[in-house]
């Protein structure tokens, strides 16, 4: 079980890794990459909710929501 990040930069890095999964998805199985990105974003959302800095946590949570909406849109377009 990976340790929960407590620093906003660590949470951002989880989000950034989800972005990279998506950006590099044309080289792999795009649907699988989107699933992995979702998993990464779920971890980021949980970590953001636990951050002591609530302002940073809310801002990062909003970034996660935007990306989940993007993934929903991409899934719909693919369907």
């Amino acid at each position, binding site marked *: 079980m990976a340790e929960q990040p407590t620093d906003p930069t660590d949470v951002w890095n989880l989000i950034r890794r989800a*972005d990279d999964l998506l*950006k*590099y998805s*044309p*080289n792999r199985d795009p649907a699988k990459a989107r699933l992995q990105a979702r998993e990464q974003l779920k971890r980021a959302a949980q970590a953001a909710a636990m951050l002591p800095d609530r302002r940073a946590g809310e801002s990062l949570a909003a*970034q996660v929501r935007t990306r989940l909406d*993007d993934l929903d849109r*991409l899934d719909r377009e*693919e369907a």
Partner: protein
Amino acid sequence: MFGRRAAEDQAGRIPPGQHLTRGWPVLHSEGIPRFNPDTWRFRVTGAVERETEWTWEEFRALPPVNVTSDFHCVTGWSKLDNEWEGVPFREVAGRVKPLPAARHCVVSAPSGYTANLPLDVLLDDDVLFAWAHGGEPLVPEHGGPMRLVVPKRYGWKSVKWANAVRFLERDLRGFWEERGYHNNAEPWAEERYSWQEGR
């Protein structure tokens, strides 16, 4: 001797936090749009004297240039000595005539993907709408039939499949800029993320 000098020259062209790639990774988060030369249009709107629309044939008839430049992706790789062919942004700007109040642009792709840039950055000599790379037509995976190329900014500003420009009096953040990436995106200053802005 020559090899070492070439390696030193290359190293001096790699911004901080980047590494050299020999290949050309394919990166994009949206689907590749279909290209039909009969229906393709390039539209320029907003704070200009002449809002203009070009067909593919008309755009390809604009005076082309060849530019060799380096390319830096925010995910960490840099590709040097890219040979591009296309139309300079300033050629397009010269035809639509930006209003004196125009300071920014948003460049977009058919998917709705956007990137924003200051007009003075876009008017640089090395900024172009490119349809060829290395002497070959630009392949769809890399933004073909045509993409914006802005060498002095991270790669997400070089909009693939670019087909519209909107001139603006005020700045308006683009797709990744809205998602926590730096508004200015200058690789030598390592401007990757929005939380670095204003530092």
